[in-house]
């Protein structure tokens, strides 16, 4: 095999090697990152980008692979974060048992609620998942019994010392990277399995799958639980990364931001959700720091007011993507190629 063909097939490996080595780089990326790549601030942002890229990839197992529009994915992410955080802080468990049980909580919750919500399909499913997630969000914010920390969130105590503090940002970054690799591998593996083949059929035409003699319910439930498990795992990583749990991660806005990431990057593709998640997370942080900076404060109020709200910009951006870029970023090369071909045909 020649080099280009090898590269086309195996490029993820060198890309992964580069990602692994990033903490050792002192390269500054002015405009993109505030400090050099290897600085704790930049690594923290990069790690968040990877976590959300992975989270979006897991969410796309539902949206892009099985055709399930869930509006409650935040719940399973938050379940991982909060269950682990509570077991650490309130029950005094060690980190590993707490993380294991936190993950298990995500599995159990997604199995239980998935089993109920999948009894309705289409938009009904979207509404029911939303309602469940909202119940979880209310529970966390109202904080009955005073365990979740309510609006304040939960600062996790009892994290292993080797994973806390600025000195260990690189380790946390690698954990985030490992989570991303696990998610990508799990999704890729599942999509190529016999169940993955049925998912594709369900996405394209669920009724027709039934006529083949397969009951879609169980297949959809597997997708739901797998996606929920990956989200809960992401929740545990997020807890490590930020040292606590915040109620924002339980809200429907959080699920909607996952949806935006997936659509932005390209739903149903291998790399699209990852790209979307990274771009979105990075943009949100940049916009937030831009909003707090002097650049925007000097603008006239017609521009300053909307620009000070990252969510406003992201919402507008999202609408534009839905209109102008239906396949997301991942569909861009194919669209450009198609346009070049039709240009060539006209010439």
């Amino acid at each position, binding site marked *: 095999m020649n080099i280009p063909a090898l590269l086309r097939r195996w490029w993820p490996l060198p890309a992964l090697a580069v990602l692994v080595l990033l903490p050792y780089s002192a390269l500054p990326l002015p405009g993109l990152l505030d400090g050099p790549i290897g600085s704790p601030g930049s690594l923290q942002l990069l790690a968040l980008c990877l976590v959300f890229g992975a989270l979006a990839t897991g969410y796309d197992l539902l949206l892009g692979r099985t055709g399930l529009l869930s509006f409650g994915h935040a719940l399973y992410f938050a379940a991982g974060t909060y269950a682990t955080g509570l077991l650490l802080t309130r029950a005094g468990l060690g980190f590993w048992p707490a993380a294991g049980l936190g993950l298990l909580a995500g599995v159990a919750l997604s199995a239980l609620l998935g089993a*109920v919500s999948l009894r309705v399909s289409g938009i*009904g499913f979207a509404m029911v998942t939303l309602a469940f997630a*909202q119940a979880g969000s209310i529970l966390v914010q109202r904080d009955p019994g005073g365990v979740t920390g309510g609006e304040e969130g939960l600062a996790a105590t009892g994290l292993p010392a080797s994973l806390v503090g600025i000195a260990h940002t690189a380790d946390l970054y690698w954990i985030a990277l490992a989570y991303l690799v696990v998610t990508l591998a799990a999704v890729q593996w599942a999509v190529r399995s016999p169940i993955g083949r049925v998912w594709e059929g369900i996405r394209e035409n669920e009724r027709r799958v039934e006529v083949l003699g397969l009951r879609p319910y169980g297949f959809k439930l597997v997708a739901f639980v797998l996606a929920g498990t990956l989200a809960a795992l992401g929740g545990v990583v997020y807890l490590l990364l930020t040292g606590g749990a915040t109620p924002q991660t339980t809200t429907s806005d959080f699920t909607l931001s996952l949806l935006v990431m997936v659509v932005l990057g390209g739903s149903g593709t291998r790399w699209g959700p990852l790209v979307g998640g990274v771009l979105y997370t990075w943009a949100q942080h940049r916009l937030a720091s831009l909003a707090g900076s002097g650049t925007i404060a000097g603008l006239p109020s017609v521009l300053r007011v909307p620009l000070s709200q990252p969510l406003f910009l992201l919402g507008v951006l999202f609408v534009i993507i839905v209109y102008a870029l239906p396949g997301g970023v991942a569909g861009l090369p194919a669209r450009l190629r198609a346009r070049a071909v039709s240009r060539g045909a006209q010439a």
Partner: protein
Amino acid sequence: MSTVVLLGITGLGLGALYFLVASGLSLIFGLMDVLNFAHGALLSIGAYATWWAASHSFGFPLALLFGTAVGTLAAVALELGLVRPLYRRPREQVLATVGVGLAVPALLSAIWGADARTFPVPSALAGTFTLLGASVPVDRLVLVGAALVVLLALRLFLGRTRHGLVVRAGVEDRAMVTALGIDVRKAFTLVFAIGGAAAALAGGLAGLYFGSVDPTQGGSLLIFGFVVVVMGGLGSVSGAAVACVVVGLVQQFANYYSTAGLGDLSVVVMLAALLLVRPSGLTGRLA
């Protein structure tokens, strides 16, 4: 006893808000297969417009009228500008409304701040009256009354007018109506206008009910609107009316007699239970 009466009327008031949100959602979904995530945004627009007018010394009825009008215009603009160009692509339509649902509350909090603004409740509606030994705030009655008027108006519109018949037939079987050569798209704009008006009215009344307006109100009312729509059966206005009473009452009573927050939770548990027993909702119309 007086507590029960007070809770009951307050629950009905909440149910009235849910009905105003859910009736429009249900019609829009029934006719167009679009789950309108911007419905909460329409509510917030109505709430802020009403609040703005009321704090600029419009009388309350006039302020409410102004808020409803602004919300209706916003809904029509949304349908014509964003939803219609994506005709026949319901998923993209839903995504576009998601974008609007994110952007509008952010814009509102950019302009008026993220914190709640006190709603100038008119003195005529600030008082209470005595019913069966309970002193009940007057505004609850206004809410229930408004919801009843809207319910009646919707029933008359759907049952008695030509446009209403087209909407009803379209909810029943859109392909059939199109086959009859009727332009359903006019009806699309119409249901968006109706839904937007009801949501904006709900926004103004929510300001009255909660005594304040804030950018997140629309989003949280929207979610209970969804619950009501699913329980009542998609596309059914009467189903929504029954479901909103149940949801409002259960929520109030559970919140009072147990920890706060449990009422909201019990509503969702009720939804889950209903779906387990009857996946098609109360009226058997969930596809």
